């Protein structure tokens, strides 16, 4: 008995190894993965890596304000004299946190709704769920997020709520499309005829066939979530100062373009690198998973 279980674990490892082999065929995907891992690493260990960790809090030293990049301050200082490099490292935290929290909420809810609507495609469950989804899909995500944020008190948690509300319908729709076609496959019909419970059919038969596209979308969406939340903090609706957030840093620094360009440009580049990393990783995942199917 234990022998079979060991065999199955071996098979799983083999599958992971095979998947890594396919993923690593495209160097740029691996680059994306490295960027993401680096950002995560920097965010976790910011306290130790940042040269001036206390600059990420209520610190002011106007004599050092708006210094260009130098030996002491790699990316320069902002108007309040705070080291931009250190603040960027700490600003990765709310960005990553938002991504993780939002996706942890949005993906399960959207997936479950999509599963139900797709399975009952054509019936009332489908109509109710998908019409509500359509309403939300009709509104541009950024506008929706802004509107929600404006109503709630501006803080990090509420900005996550706003982004979540803007995002869930995309998962519902994607999963709906997949499930609506899968539910007529003979293996699903076989399960129904055997008398399996609906929960088993939805989560154990249909869902495993949707995991790959969901996973890919999650990775690509991480970039979107970062941009969306940076947009919110750009207009002051996210993480409040003095806690560093990439969008806020860009907003503060944009007042001083083009002379003290480094105050806006470097945080913006940080956003770009982060989003790019997730996008390349997501693309790589999609390619590796797609080639599996053929």
């Amino acid at each position, binding site marked *: 008995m234990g022998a079979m279980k060991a065999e199955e674990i071996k098979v799983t490892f083999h599958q992971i190894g095979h998947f890594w082999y396919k993923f690593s065929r495209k160097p740029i995907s691996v680059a994306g993965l490295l960027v993401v891992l680096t950002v995560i690493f920097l965010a976790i260990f910011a306290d130790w890596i940042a040269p001036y960790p206390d600059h990420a809090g209520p610190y002011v030293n106007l004599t050092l304000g708006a210094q260009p990049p130098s030996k002491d301050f790699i990316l320069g200082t902002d108007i309040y004299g705070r080291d931009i490099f250190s603040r960027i490292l700490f600003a990765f935290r709310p960005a990553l946190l938002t991504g993780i929290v939002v996706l942890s909420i949005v993906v399960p809810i959207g997936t479950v709704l999509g599963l139900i609507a797709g399975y009952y495609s054509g019936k009332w469950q489908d109509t109710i769920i998908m019409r509500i989804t359509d309403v939300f899909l009709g509104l541009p995500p950024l506008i929706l997020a802004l509107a929600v944020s404006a109503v709630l008190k501006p803080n990090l948690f509420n900005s996550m709520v706003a982004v979540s509300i803007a995002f869930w319908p995309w998962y519902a729709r994607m999963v709906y499309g997949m499930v609506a076609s899968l539910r007529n496959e003979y293996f699903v019909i076989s399960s*129904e005829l055997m008398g399996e419970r609906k929960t088993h059919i939805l989560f154990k038969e249909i869902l495993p066939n949707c995991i790959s596209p969901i996973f890919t979308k999650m990775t690509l969406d991480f970039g979107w979530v970062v941009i969306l939340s940076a947009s919110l903090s750009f207009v002051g609706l996210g993480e409040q100062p003095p806690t560093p957030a990439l969008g806020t840093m860009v907003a503060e620094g944009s007042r001083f373009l083009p002379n003290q360009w480094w105050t806006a440009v470097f945080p913006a580049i940080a956003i770009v690198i982060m989003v790019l990393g997730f996008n390349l990783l997501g693309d790589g995942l999609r390619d590796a998973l797609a080639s599996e199917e053929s």
Partner: protein
Amino acid sequence: MNQPLLQIKELKKYFLVEKRLFSKSGKYLKAVDGITFDLNPREVLGLVGESGSGKSTVAYTVAGMYKPTSGNIIFQGHQINVTAVKRPLVVKKDIQIVFQDPGSSLNPRRNVRQILERPLLLYNLASSRNVRSKVEELLKMVELPREYMLKYPGEIGGGERQLIAIARALASQPKLLILDEPTSALDVSIQAKIINTLSNLQKEFGLSYLFITHDLSLMRNVADRVAIMYLGKILEIAPTLDFFRNPLHPYTQMLLSAIPTIKKEEEELKPKRVPPTGEIPSPVNPPNGCRFHTRCPLKFEKCEIDEPIFKEVASGHWVSCHLI
């Protein structure tokens, strides 16, 4: 014990094709239009027909995918005119189906062990502790190696997938197995193994098969009785030997005369070549009178107006034709 396992009485299944707004009526596709037959325990009944005959619809309705439009399905003495989800668990267990396409009848994301476990656990035929050894027994039953438990459907060939589908169907120890063209998608060298395995299992476990195929030569070797369908009706039903040696209905003769054969001895067994005339009509607008009259070389006036009665003309041999 003389009761038939399955009794089908005047079964009809219509599908709505067009519906006029605000009106109950509409155009219907009459896939099955009133058929009656019995299936006995330990018997293999072959259902033969071309496209549009309704044979698959019969299979799916008996299996519980569709609810009959009218008529009766009586299984072991009890009426089961509802879809599978509404049937009692014990009936679900006793009626199983194997589909034509081995590619889509197994979940590509589940390995063989996980696939074969389901019926065992669902019908309480194994506990979570001994289910693995029961799965091994199932694999042995279809002569597949134990190592296949770890394989995914994508890793094994079409014939082997069908064997897994068969093992899954027989895991619940059913009384009736419906086979919808189980080997039509497979090469002949693989088909042979599957069919022989099915035959052996049928005899060993005393199962009844409702075997659907368009391949008459296969039917000749597999079925105890054969029924031939055309546009939703059964035109002829007879014990196999009778059916092939003494086909009475013109359509049966036409089909038999068109079979490609590989030995001279087979050619001599075929009726004289009857070239068909015209195309198969659509099941949405079946012809009046006898369904087959538009293509029948022997038709006369009555055939266009009156539908012939399905009657027994020899022991166990029923035909629906004005000529007889």
